[in-house]
């Protein structure tokens, strides 16, 4: 990706160079001088393919010297038509479609869709299923944050940390594979419950995984938060003030790192979170003060890994007995849903922030409408104030810091 930045910048200078030839040597020298002093600014655009992570967005930067003067964003570069496909399928089929909206937070999307449909059809989810849902969602959060920590380290040019965090991430992936039958696409939640139980023999494995993350937590903090190089590259970079975060409706760790106490698990508890009393983590709890910069975002996400580990441990130790799904036969579920009419929403806290699904059913097998809002969509605008006055070299880490 760095190659791409260089390439773009190079192309821009080439164009300027050509202009210089056109306008004669004397003027050209003047222009170069102006450039050196940072007098003129020019615009470079990055994206829509792979700007920092995989989301297809295009960022336009107004650059003056090494500084970003202004940034703008262009969206809607890719249309997948997922919502339309969904309106041609039945809810059981949509589960796996929703799972593919986001590769990493797949449980969140499925769960959110399930909650929307359950609220339409008034389906009661058994308590054991709620706990299993919570554990899967939290395992996913650990997975996502560890992955992000690696990506952030990579954007900072610190690849040994990336390999370390990704190696640590393997543990949770293996556990997920044992529990759900696949490393990434878990296919766990279904309408009215979950698809697989956690038998007793797997509890040990989950607790062991949680213990592993607790044991390396100190080391991770040491590597990412107490490292002078990382601190120099991230402190005071990409600042998002609390007012800006509120005004731009930032969600998830991006908002929390700016000191906004916003977390769906706290504000509107779902699944087993009602019994847990989860509190939103802001840098104040971790570091004592809030700066709202990239460093704070790293700190918040790391603290959330520890928080997730605690939640999982509590859930596994206190998991209630009982059924895991309200109706075992998917065909009967479909028959019940065919009679359902109305609108429902499902909100929940994904690793990146709030996921929102809206479903409208009109008594047909397929939903009449399905609308998805993924967390990155809410967070994208907050990139713009972060980019202002940033160095070109800091663009990748700032763009990656919202975990797009």
């Amino acid at each position, binding site marked *: 990706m760095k190659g791409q930045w260089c390439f773009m910048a190079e192309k821009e200078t080439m164009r300027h160079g050509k202009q210089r030839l056109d306008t004669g040597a004397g003027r050209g020298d003047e222009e170069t001088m102006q450039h050196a002093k940072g007098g003129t600014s020019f615009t470079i655009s990055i994206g829509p393919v792979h700007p920092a992570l995989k989301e297809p967005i295009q960022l336009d930067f107004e650059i003056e010297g090494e500084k970003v003067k202004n940034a703008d964003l262009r969206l809607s570069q890719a249309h997948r038509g997922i919502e339309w496909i969904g309106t041609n*399928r*039945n809810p*059981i*089929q*949509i*589960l*796996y*479609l929703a*799972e*593919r909206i986001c590769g990493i937070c797949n449980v969140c999307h499925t769960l959110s869709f399930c909650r929307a449909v359950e609220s339409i059809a008034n389906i009661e989810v058994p308590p054991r299923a709620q706990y299993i849902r919570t554990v899967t969602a939290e395992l996913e959060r650990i997975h996502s944050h560890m992955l992000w920590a690696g990506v952030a380290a990579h954007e900072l040019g*610190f690849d*040994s*940390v990336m390999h*370390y965090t990704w*190696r640590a991430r*393997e543990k949770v992936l293996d556990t997920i*594979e*044992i529990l759900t*039958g*696949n490393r990434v*696409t878990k*296919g766990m939640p279904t309408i009215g419950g979950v*698809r*697989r139980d956690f038998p007793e023999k797997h509890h040990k494995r989950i607790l062991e995984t949680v213990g592993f993350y607790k044991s390396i937590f100190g*080391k991770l903090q*040491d*590597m990412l938060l*107490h*490292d*002078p190089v990382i601190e120099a590259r991230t402190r005071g970079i990409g600042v998002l003030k609390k007012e800006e975060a509120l005004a731009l409706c930032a969600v998830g760790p991006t908002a929390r790192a700016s000191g906004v106490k916003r977390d769906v698990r706290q504000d509107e508890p779902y699944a087993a979170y009602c019994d847990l009393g989860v509190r939103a983590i802001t840098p104040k709890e971790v570091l004592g003060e809030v700066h709202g910069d990239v460093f704070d975002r790293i700190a918040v996400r790391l603290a959330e890994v520890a928080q997730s580990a605690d939640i999982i441990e509590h859930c596994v130790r206190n998991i209630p007995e009982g059924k895991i799904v309200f109706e075992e*036969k*998917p*065909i009967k579920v*479909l028959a019940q849903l065919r009679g359902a009419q109305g609108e429902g929403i499902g909100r929940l806290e994904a690793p990146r922030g709030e996921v929102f699904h809206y479903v409208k059913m009109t008594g047909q097998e397929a939903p009449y409408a399905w609308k998805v809002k993924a967390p990155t969509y809410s967070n994208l605008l907050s990139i713009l104030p972060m980019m202002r006055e940033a160095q070109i070299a800091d663009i990748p880490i700032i763009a990656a810091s919202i975990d797009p």
Partner: protein
Amino acid sequence: MFGMAKELLRQLFKKPFTNLFPAKRAPGSVKDFLKAVGEGKKKLNPPVPVPEGYRGKIRYYRDKCIGCGLCTRVCPAEAVVLIPEEKKIRYHMSRCCFCAQCVEVCPVKALETTQEFLLADYKKS
């Protein structure tokens, strides 16, 4: 501070964490290598065990199937297609997303998940 440096030094003396490639070193010719393995001259690194309950390739027992078509109704990828005149289904592995919903729904257990995960091939059939 220096957390990473310490960790890096420690890693120098550890075994590699990644799963091993079947051959210890990349062979010049895969064919010759496999032949040598067949003759017992060379050894392959053992494969990584797949956990129980892994959602791999779907196996279809044609004789058990009663042609009820429930699997085609729940399959999100339209990877199982009903052949009405034979009252059997056809399973397209290349379309399948391995969700195992069809396995759950089948009333006579004519479908099951296997632990097979090496599915890349040159031919679709």
